[in-house]
């Protein structure tokens, strides 16, 4: 355990909260996350954000994607993950830019560009979380129809935004008339 592992949570400011229906689920989630070396802290949710029990988990909000996947694998139930301040909703909208032979799809801070004739991923840009260079290397030159979704290999909110761009790109590709 590094110096910033689970025992160094005092003053931890991760910016995210996981809300639970009951205390047992909160305790189980804490145990699962600590075992996976996530930084977590049991806190009382602010009254305005409370949606069940009196316990919530503070997490690094950016790690939402990895935490949600871990919860699915370990059958941990929770109400939702929300930021401690600001908009409580993830950006849903995407923007599209046509380069002629290539199409760029933007979701939040992430952009995915694919070849309109072949359906291969040409480039990934934007973002800034540590999993993005890895996902960049994994996805480049893969066909949209064969590539693994970014949310399956990523850990961060950047990966989640890239996943949205990927899904939208795949839908656009599937709608396109093929040569």
């Amino acid at each position, binding site marked *: 355990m590094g110096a910033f592992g689970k025992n160094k949570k005092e003053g931890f400011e991760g910016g995210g909260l996981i809300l639970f229906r009951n205390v047992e689920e909160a305790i189980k989630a804490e145990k699962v996350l600590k075992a996976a070396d996530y930084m977590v802290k049991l806190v009382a949710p602010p009254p305005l954000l409370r949606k069940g029990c009196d316990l919530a988990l503070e997490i690094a909000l950016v790690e939402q994607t990895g935490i949600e996947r871990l919860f699915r694998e370990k059958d941990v139930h929770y109400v939702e993950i929300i930021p401690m*301040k600001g*908009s409580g909703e993830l950006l849903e909208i995407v923007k599209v830019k046509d380069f002629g032979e290539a199409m760029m799809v933007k979701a939040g801070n992430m952009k995915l560009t694919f*070849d309109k004739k072949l359906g291969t991923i040409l*480039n990934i*840009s934007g973002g800034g979380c540590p999993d993005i260079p*890895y996902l960049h*290397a994994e996805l480049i030159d893969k066909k949209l129809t064969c590539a693994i979704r970014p949310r399956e290999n990523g850990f*961060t909110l950047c990966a989640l935004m890239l996943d949205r761009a990927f899904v939208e790109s795949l839908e656009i590709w599937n709608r396109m008339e093929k040569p």
Partner: protein
Amino acid sequence: MMLICGTIPQEDFPLSIGTVKFSGKSLTVGAREILCLQGTAALTGAACVTTEYLGVNPPQALLVGDRGTGKGSRLLYEYLSKNLPPLAPRVLVLHYILPVMGLMKKVCESAQRCHQKPIMIADASSMYAAKAAGLATRFDVFTPDACEMAFLADPDATHPAYMSRHLFDSDITQTPELAAKAYQNRSAARLLLVKGSVDYIVEEGKIIETITEPDIPELEAIGGTGDTITGIVAAFTSAGLELNEAAILAARANRMAGRYARAAPASRIWEIIAQLPAVFREHLCAWRGSCGEMMVATR
């Protein structure tokens, strides 16, 4: 000394500090080789090429493997929190590091303890952490793109994925309004280089320059083209240029490198970096208004 801090997408890459060498498509730190992809590797590659052209010391890099789990990032935060004062970098660049506000605060406290506070540059997730933790005004340079500019303008957002929808709908032409909001909220560094179809250089709330030529829309699609701008800014700053001139030159050079590389949506970032020496050779004197030597920083 310029110190670049960030992560590398190899989980087994140990925390390493040392002088970086760039050769074509890869970087070497000590005996380890890193492919020059999007992210801190791209930033470092551009900084290496620029410092080499200028004839100043190459960057030092503090790198660690992290595929997104955050384990490497936490080691990096811990190292910086303890060791920044003895390292005493003149320019400190914080880049792809898992954004954790509490840990970024410790790094900033450590920077404050340096005999002379470093010139602090943040991009990518380090910029997110600095803004979210209310530390933006301790930084000298942020290099956001249009989306990240909207994030800086949102007083409550702690990550661009959770910013207000109406701000995400903004485009690059709304940078003046967004920058004004960011400065008003104390969510901006002293200087912003906002990257987009128009590059805006904003210093303490005032737009001092806009750059539109050459117009290479394909650069937006190429992973790493934002990172290279930050690396060039850091290198020029390390060579002794004022921040505003460093930012203007970096924005121009990055665009021109895109033109020289005949940038296409499928281009790789090393193709852009490879053009920088020719760009500097052919344009730097004209852009600066003279061919006088850079004022080389001594520390």
